[in-house]
């Protein structure tokens, strides 16, 4: 299994796009950090603002970069790995090797999940460094307490929890993308379909807005509002999309 993962990982980095995307994403994170730290205030949602300081900064930075992550940096690689290789025909060479199809899909998922973790690590690193460099340690204790209750950020552990929950959302998007890539025959359509389904879910239910408005949704979860419903909604999307993709991947003609 390890070799399968490494092979997948190597092929991912064999595309120039991967390196370019990582560099550009890091640049976007730095720019967003500059802008956000100048602004000095973070929005938990449209109505609630919180004063930024060194310790809560990484969470708000992720909220700002989340659109680029969820709409560009992650899906571009998802679609290339899950549909691009197959549409192009290159994946046939892999399918001909002595491995179960399930193992091949698992290797893809692991490689892409590591990619998403890398993107989040970039934002976290930029957030921590920028926060320490450009922002102070926060204002009065009362202000910190207000921030903690509004955003659910009481300690650095909460910031990590913020990243963790967001990571789950991005992984769910990967499941959704796998399913879409198996349903439509072109990379352009798969990509558009993924973005369309983010937006579509917004209309289906308020509780499914986390794909497009993840930054805001995670704040809500961490401050204890509707964590159960969120877990149910996210869990259902994950079970359905990963489950259906798993079955289809094993049965369908892939290349």
């Amino acid at each position, binding site marked *: 299994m390890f070799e399968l993962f490494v092979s997948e990982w190597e092929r991912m980095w064999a595309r120039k796009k991967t390196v370019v995307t990582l560099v550009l994403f890091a640049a976007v994170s730095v720019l967003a950090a500059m802008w956000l730290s100048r602004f000095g205030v973070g929005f938990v949602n449209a109505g609630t603002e919180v004063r930024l300081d060194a310790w809560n900064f990484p969470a708000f930075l992720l909220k700002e970069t989340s659109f680029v992550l969820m*709409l560009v940096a992650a899906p571009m690689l998802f679609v290339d790995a899950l549909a691009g290789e197959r549409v192009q025909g290159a994946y046939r060479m892999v399918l001909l090797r002595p491995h179960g199809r399930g193992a091949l899909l698992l290797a893809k998922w692991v490689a892409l999940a590591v990619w998403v973790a890398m993107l989040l690590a970039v934002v976290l690193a930029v957030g921590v460094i920028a926060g320490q460099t450009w922002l102070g340690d926060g204002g009065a204790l009362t202000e910190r307490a207000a921030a903690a209750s509004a955003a659910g950020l009481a300690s650095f552990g909460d910031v990590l929890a913020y990243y963790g929950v967001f990571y789950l959302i991005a992984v769910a998007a990967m499941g959704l993308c796998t399913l879409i890539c198996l349903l439509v025959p072109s990379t352009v359509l798969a990509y558009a379909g993924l973005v369309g389904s983010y937006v579509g879910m917004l209309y289906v239910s308020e509780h499914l807005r986390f794909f497009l408005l993840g930054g805001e949704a995670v704040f809500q979860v961490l401050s204890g509002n509707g964590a159960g419903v969120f877990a149910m909604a996210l869990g259902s999307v994950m079970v359905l999309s990963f489950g259906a993709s798993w079955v289809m991947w094993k049965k369908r003609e892939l290349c």
Partner: protein
Amino acid sequence: MKGLWMSEWLRLWSRKRTWGMFLMMPVLVYAAARYCLEQNGALSPGMPEYATVWNFPVLALAEHLMTVFNLLVVVLLAAAVTEEARSGQLRFLLLRAVTFAELFWAKWTVVLAAVGVFLGAFYLECWGIGWWLFERTETVGLFYREGAFAGGEAVRYGLAYYGLAGLTVVAMASVMLLLAVMAQTATAAVGMGIGWLLLSFGWPVAARMFGAQVQSLSITHIQHQGIAAMLADGRPMMRWNLGVMVCYVAVCLTVGYLWFVKRRGLDV
């Protein structure tokens, strides 16, 4: 050239995806109408945001669906330019004594014509669904305009609005065409297109302190606020916004054209 144009046009419409997107339009219009009905509950009649038969086509486009047209342009161009070029499908065309320049202009105008058809259909669907769901009030309010207006005036306003909206889509499409020509793969073309849209959304917020003109360098900002401002009493932003759009079209088409022709149709 005419034959090439027709072949590109027919190929576009021979695809299920084009028809799929086309048939999605009424569903989106209906969703927008439901949303406007809900909003009406909290508004008083006579406000520009209050939806009636007369102004629903404008509200539907302005509130949500301009983005749909931007995405439509991304998808159509990524498919017609990047996907075809990179998968070698252009080779078949080029065997038929077609020059790269002809191919470039054919693709560009075909996508524009398709967007025109989509926009026209959208307008008519708004009337159909609006006629069914909304009140036919005596007068209606218009954005940034003093007084109440009769239905006929509102219709003229709507047509002008759609005309300008069409122009913004042309400007957006020229950026997307450039990105599609430069992209190595179709996914990169879509990714860059969406990245550009995000940048366009972010720009007006980042440039708030520099005023409306700098903010209006973003095409999506023109779409969301600029068109209404252009049609406001005294037409304050008309020249500036038109100038911005002309610049986008001129620069992107020139660079895109040179890139496409120099790189011989993306190295087919």
